[in-house]
């Protein structure tokens, strides 16, 4: 049995989600993640994964080149800064538009194929973009060093306004770094989530799930899957473009490595890890991976000795030795183990874990309920 959640439940979910996102600085602080940069990354990659999930989770088309849109969004945002000024709004709009156009072009070609052939086509386009951005296109992308805003840039609308201050994006005088930057990203994540939720429940969303379920039947039902998949591809490309723009709004530097296949692979992993086709899963997956990358990599032996300092010496040394394999330079090992454990024990990702816990809870409370009604009979 799986009925679509009612509008009320969806609203509740949205409100809880929005509240959770906005209060992240508070409840993430105890686990060491309550600082602006990581919070921004959570929001931005959450948005990226949400958009990716609209394509992959709903239609089943696995794009292995979505990082290209992240890169295009980033470069467009920085160029907007350079040419027009440091306001984040035009940068975001231009980035969405540019990545949208780019997605139309790549999607139009790649969607002529399905399955792994589609994956490889998208991978090929992204890798070409990456390789060219790194080398031949350096005049546009500034290659390895990355594209930045320079004082000598025209910045039509605010060149005069800024003196010697740092070149960061400002919205109505508020610098988009630190916590203001996080709240800007958070608001966009919430909007992005809201749109994704609407799409999930809309006729369009149903059609996308139909694409995943049975394209043949879809054809014989008088529906043309191509424009549906293309629309999903473009929308998810725009999400990626916006995420790319946000990376530059909070930190005005766009590097080519953002387009590399590893970056595309990362969003795939985020989505699968969290639970593809679910609304919250990809955001959780993104948060988890970014948390490991930023927090687990920061542990060193010093910190470990402090953490395990309460242990007696003969225990402390081996415990630290073993743990140190999984943190610091070994953080990727932890991530690899985590991928395997989750997929082995929780097919369907973290969300599957939640729903299992939920079911267990309901079952036990249900059992209790019947218990209570028994005497009444």
């Amino acid at each position, binding site marked *: 049995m799986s009925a679509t959640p009612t509008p009320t439940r969806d609203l509740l979910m949205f409100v809880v989600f929005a509240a959770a996102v906005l209060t992240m600085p508070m409840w993430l602080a105890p686990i060491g993640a309550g600082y602006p940069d990581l919070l921004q990354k959570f929001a931005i990659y959450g948005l990226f994964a949400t958009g990716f999930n609209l394509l992959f989770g709903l239609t089943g088309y696995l794009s292995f080149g979505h990082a290209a849109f992240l890169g295009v969004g980033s470069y467009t945002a920085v160029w907007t800064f350079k040419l027009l000024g440091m306001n984040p709004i035009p940068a975001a709009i231009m980035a969405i538009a540019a990545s949208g156009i780019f997605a139309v072009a790549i999607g139009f070609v790649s969607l002529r194929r399905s399955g792994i052939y589609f994956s490889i086509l998208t991978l090929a386009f992204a890798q070409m973009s990456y390789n060219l951005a790194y080398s031949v296109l350096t005049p546009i992308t500034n290659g390895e060093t990355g594209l930045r805003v320079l004082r000598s840039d025209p910045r039509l609308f605010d060149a005069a306004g800024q003196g010697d201050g740092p070149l960061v994006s400002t919205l109505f005088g508020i610098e988009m770094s630190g916590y203001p930057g996080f709240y800007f990203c958070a608001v966009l994540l919430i909007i992005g989530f809201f749109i994704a939720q609407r799409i999930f429940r809309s*006729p369009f969303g149903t059609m996308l799930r139909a694409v995943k*379920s049975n394209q043949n039947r879809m054809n014989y039902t008088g529906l043309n899957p191509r424009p549906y998949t293309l629309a999903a591809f473009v929308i998810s490309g725009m999400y990626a473009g916006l995420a790319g723009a946000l990376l530059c709004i909070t930190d005005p530097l766009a590097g080519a490595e953002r387009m590399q296949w590893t970056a595309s692979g990362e969003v795939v992993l985020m989505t699968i890890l969290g639970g593809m086709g679910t609304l919250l899963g990809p955001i959780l997956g993104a948060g988890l991976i970014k948390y490991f990358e930023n927090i687990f990599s920061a542990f060193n032996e010093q910190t470990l000795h402090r953490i395990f300092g309460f242990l007696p010496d003969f225990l402390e040394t081996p415990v630290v030795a073993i743990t140190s394999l999984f943190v610091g330079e070994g953080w990727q090992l932890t991530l690899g183990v985590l991928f395997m454990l989750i997929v082995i024990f929780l097919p369907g990702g973290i969300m599957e874990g939640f729903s299992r816990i939920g079911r267990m809870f309901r079952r036990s409370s249900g059992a209790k309920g019947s218990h209570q009604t028994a005497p009444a009979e």
Partner: protein
Amino acid sequence: MEILKVQGVNKAFGGLRALNDVNLSVEEGTVHAIIGPNGAGKSTLLNCFVGRLIPDTGSVMFGNTSLIGLKAHEINQAGVSRVFQTPEIFGDLTLLENIMIPTMARRDGEFALKAWGRVDQDAEIRDRSMHMLEDVGLASKKDMIAGSLSRGDKRRLELAMCLVQDPKLLLLDEPTAGMSRADTNNTIDLLKRIGERGITKIVIEHDMHVVFSLANKISVLAQGTVIAEGTPQEIKGDPRVQEAYLGGAHL
């Protein structure tokens, strides 16, 4: 009036001639059965009607529209629906969604970017779909995942998905294959009820019981050619048919 007119259709796969100058005409409102031994070309012919195959030569006219070269979804939008030999449904979706999709396809066309409103709040689509589910007796299972249905239910669901579109022509590829006698009879009843709506049907069927209880007209296909055509009574007595079916051996 003829709703479907097939003239001089040929189709070869490599050296194998699957269809050899097939001519067929289906009258509006009738049930037209196509029978024939295995490998006679029945499915190939059906595939030529729905855009899955393109004939090498010949024409397939649906009313005034040529179906040749049209894509599958365009043919459906023109008013031709098809039930498959193995049910093609949206296995990951609920029954209700399975019905809503063709309903929306009929109303909104081959593509509509309706990404905002909730699908379950579209009263028109919902009512129509529920009505259809009730018609085929699946209303109580509307929230079940379609893939978990029994084979018989899947067939009924698929049939409902086609019927909800009010097609002008319904193609049925062995609608009772693999069914028990009781299920078969249910299906015959269901099909007869649809008959009352005046939908033209083309049925491919092995089960002669089904054929003779439904069809107004029968075409017999053997080795890619129509060898006989007529009412059930005429076909029953035709020696060529018997030969085609039984190889003319012992009767």
